[in-house]
């Protein structure tokens, strides 16, 4: 069974690439392959010009910050401890380093609250902070791979995360983000890759990739475009 086919993708430093597509399109599998967790049966993946299999896990962890779709934690770690795990590849993990402190303050996370008593959105925010901690001061040396980072986040935190991604991008960090919000994707992305059934349906800037016929082909539903130019807005038509 083929899950991905004919994928040609480059994530550049300082650029944000957004993967869009319906459930089961192969976005998360592609992320797992790019992050080195899964190996493609055919084809080639290079991270900073090297085969990820030949880079040690420690070195890869200093180069790639990865947020997976589901991270379960069954133990009552504090938010500080979870975020500090992102500093582990740098040999810092006690949670009292500058980066962890800065992220805790920046996102208003209750440092000593148990992760298990947090809401789904708060837990997602803590996991995001953990991944940010991994690449926070790496600049153009690192990449972020985020699988549905906005899941469960309220509008304020979505906006905060979007601003942070833009800030990190301006510092030279390359980003690949899986998203479901087409409109937010259009705002964030330098490049959008629209996927369906394991293949790329359209690729390019938001203006190039996000066309009604591309979206309808990818999502197999009727899409309406409201407005035009940079103010355009897409919504799926309700089924009657």
């Amino acid at each position: 069974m083929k899950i991905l086919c004919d994928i040609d993708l480059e994530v550049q430093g300082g650029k944000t690439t957004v993967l869009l597509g319906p459930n089961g399109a192969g976005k998360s599998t592609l992320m797992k392959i790019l992050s080195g967790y899964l190996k493609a049966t055919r084809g080639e993946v290079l991270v900073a010009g090297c085969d990820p299999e030949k880079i040690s896990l420690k070195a890869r962890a200093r180069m790639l910050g990865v947020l997976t779709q589901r991270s379960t934690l069954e133990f009552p770690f504090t938010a500080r401890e979870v975020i500090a795990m992102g500093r582990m590849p740098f040999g810092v993990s006690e949670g009292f380093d500058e980066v962890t402190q800065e992220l805790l303050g920046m996102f208003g996370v209750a440092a000593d609250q148990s992760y298990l008593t947090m809401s789904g959105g708060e837990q997602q925010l803590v996991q995001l902070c953990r991944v940010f901690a991994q690449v926070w001061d790496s600049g153009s040396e690192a990449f972020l791979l985020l699988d549905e980072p906005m899941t469960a986040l309220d509008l304020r935190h979505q906006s905060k995360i979007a601003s942070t991604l833009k800030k990190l991008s301006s510092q030279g960090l390359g980003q690949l983000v899986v998203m479901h919000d087409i409109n937010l994707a259009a705002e964030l992305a330098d490049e959008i890759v629209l996927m369906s059934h394991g293949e790329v349906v359209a690729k390019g800037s938001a203006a190039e990739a996000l066309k009604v016929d591309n979206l309808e082909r990818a999502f197999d539903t009727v899409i309406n475009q409201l407005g035009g130019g940079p103010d355009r807005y897409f919504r799926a038509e309700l089924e009657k």
Partner: protein
Amino acid sequence: MERPPGHHMKIAALALMVCVLAIASLLFGSADVSFRDLLGLLSDDNDAPGLKTIVLDIRLPRTILALLVGAGVSASGAAIQGMFRNPLADPALIGVSAGAALFAAIYVVMDGSQGLSLIGMTGSAFVGGLLTTWIVLIVGGRGGGLSTILLAGIAINAIALSGVGMLSYLSTDTQLRSISFWALGSLNGATWISVLLALAIPVVVFLIFLESRNLNVITLGNEEAEHLGVSHQKLRVRIVSLCAVAVGIGVALTGVIAFLGLVVPHLVRMTLGSNHRTVVPASALLGGMLLLVADVISRTILAPTELPVGILTALVGGPFFIYLIMVEQKGRLVI
């Protein structure tokens, strides 16, 4: 910003309690020993040979063995729970206790001599524990997932315990008593030789402690751990092997000590948090302490006879664990 000193203080407080209880445990037993007698032994003022034997050759090795075995089983429990990302996991999951029990039973039934040798019995149990764990790792490791290992552990446990049942059925009355008594767990046979063998446990506990940061990360998930630079497959082999050695030595020397590896890490997490840099040493100290207290009770409650300590740990640990679960559930519902 520096880490607050709270955790170090708590560990130091636990260590102090261990020392106090260790000294206190020398006073309890079927023969009366006062604190003054102990001081007399230290200053060589007391020439009573019986007292010297009771304290130095019987109670002191027993106390040290309780601390070491309790520490090994509990620190292993903490590591296994972290590794399997399940706060209700137990070292028995990896098959070490059942394997040790099976090989101990084989030794008892095969050995024709009347007296069982310490080295023969513990050696068989230790080899059995390691061998079963190795089989669980090989069989369970094929699927790659943690659930496969857990299922393999359950199956191998069942096979090993059915073997013990079969051997018990075939054994003579004397052999059956040996198998049962060993399976119930007891520190009754503690000698300086067993203490010497158990000295490997603190070394293993220290090696588990060195994996604390990796254990923290693995609780996020296998994939997340890899993205943070930790190979979950290699860590699994290291942790399971270390735990098999620590628990294997403990079970081989004292028999099966129930519930300690499950309850102690849980208790530590409820009071000191989940960071394995605290959980592993605190579990080792608390586990040693609780086994020591259980042993003192087991040797005094029915004096001059003794209750196997494994019965006591299960008898107290079981209801206490149910209480912990109920309190925790209540707390979660309130939140």
